[in-house]
């Protein structure tokens, strides 16, 4: 059974989106990360970039308002904000490769305490799905991950060392899971915010490496 304790997917996306800083160019990957485009950014000016060449898209398109020529990285129909621009794929990745993306938000199978992450190849699989993940992971200023805290079998996804082929070494700075928000740095993994109905013992049991607990640990407001 999938671990459905703690935060919902949209709450996880909102939790991470609260970390975006005013003026950032944010790239959202496939899966839960796309839900960040529905988050309330308040007064912060956030420019959303999608690998398929949109600079400045908005929330998901409502039913009946889809434009068949406009999708995000996950193929979902989105809206476009005033002042948006469209580029082709090489220019979209030029923006990425030249370091202009302040943060890329991706899903992952595993994140290690040293900031490695794996999200392109399953155990024993022939082939995989890299998409834009390796370009983004290697070149964005920061990598944020959103994922369920454990696998379907209850095994930790935040681990000492990745067991799957990695997407990039040492790049992850922040992870949002259904258990809370975690930072990854030279000291390893630190919990920054905990889901309201989750205990620290549950977090530690479900995590495959040491979790540091700061004195200013906050509870996620939902």
């Amino acid at each position: 059974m999938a671990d459905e304790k703690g935060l919902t997917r949209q709450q996880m996306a909102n939790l991470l989106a609260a970390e975006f800083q005013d003026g950032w160019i944010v790239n959202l990957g496939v899966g839960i990360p796309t839900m960040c485009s529905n988050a309330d950014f308040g007064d912060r000016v956030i420019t959303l970039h999608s690998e398929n060449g949109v600079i400045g898209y908005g929330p998901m398109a409502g039913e009946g308002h889809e434009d068949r020529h406009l999708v995000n990285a996950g193929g979902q129909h989105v809206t476009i904000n005033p002042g948006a621009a469209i580029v082709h794929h090489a220019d979209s990745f030029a923006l990425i490769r030249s370091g202009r993306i302040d943060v890329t938000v991706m899903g992952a199978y595993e994140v290690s305490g040293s900031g490695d992450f794996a999200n392109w190849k399953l155990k024993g699989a022939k082939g995989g799905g890299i998409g834009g993940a390796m370009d983004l992971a290697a070149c964005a200023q920061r990598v944020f991950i959103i994922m369920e805290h454990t696998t379907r079998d209850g095994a930790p996804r935040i681990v000492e060392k990745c067991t799957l082929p990695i997407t990039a070494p040492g790049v992850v700075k922040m992870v949002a899971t259904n258990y809370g928000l975690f930072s990854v740095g030279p000291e390893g993994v630190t919990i920054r915010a905990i889901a309201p109905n989750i205990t620290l013992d549950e977090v530690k049991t479900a995590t495959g490496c040491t979790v540091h607990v700061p004195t200013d640990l906050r509870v996620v407001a939902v």
Partner: protein
Amino acid sequence: MSRSKIFPSLDAAVADIPDGATIGFAGFSGVGSPCFLVGALIRQGAKNLTCVANSTNQRNPPPGGADMGGVCANGQLAKAICAFTAPTRPSQKLPFTEFYEAGKVDAEIVPQGTLAERLRAAGSGIPAFFTPAGVGTEIAEGKESRIFNGRTYLMEHALPLDYAFLRAWKADMLGNLQFRLTQRNFNPLMAMAARVTIVEVEEEILPAGAIDPDLVHVPGVYVHRLVKVNPKGMA
């Protein structure tokens, strides 16, 4: 103009493609995807093909349309060059996967930005370039690397195409193309990388001069064949 670029049918536009050709299919998530040309390629039957696309599958191709998975299932594919060679979810089953896992087709997985840049390089007279994407991962194995300013980069080679299949929103009779929103994606890059570029066009093909030169996304010099397609039901 000595010879018209407008072809009467999809089948006529792909008729000469030989066995062993390398063909690029533009498009991303079905948007800007030349699914009707791919459908015509399946009817045409050329074999031992190397096909280049972001992914082996396109979301919900309409009737008459197809994707690389269809080319593979019809026994025409020798090798896929893609950013996705397996489904991203274990529960998903792609037509291509069965053939790949059985060793009936070959595949090369390429990070998406590297794929785009390899096409751009091929269309720009640049034989190879260096990128940090993939450094420290499995895909760096066997690739030449170099350090510039203290950072490691992988050498990646240009990816020239024999044919490119495109989907455009508007075209004029000289082959100048315009795309709408995220339809553009790989389309201009594949046109630049190919010896022969074939385009399925959504709107009526316009007279020369009907598209403002400042608003042309792909100049007609890169485009060789145009076919008007029926937009009804198209992705």
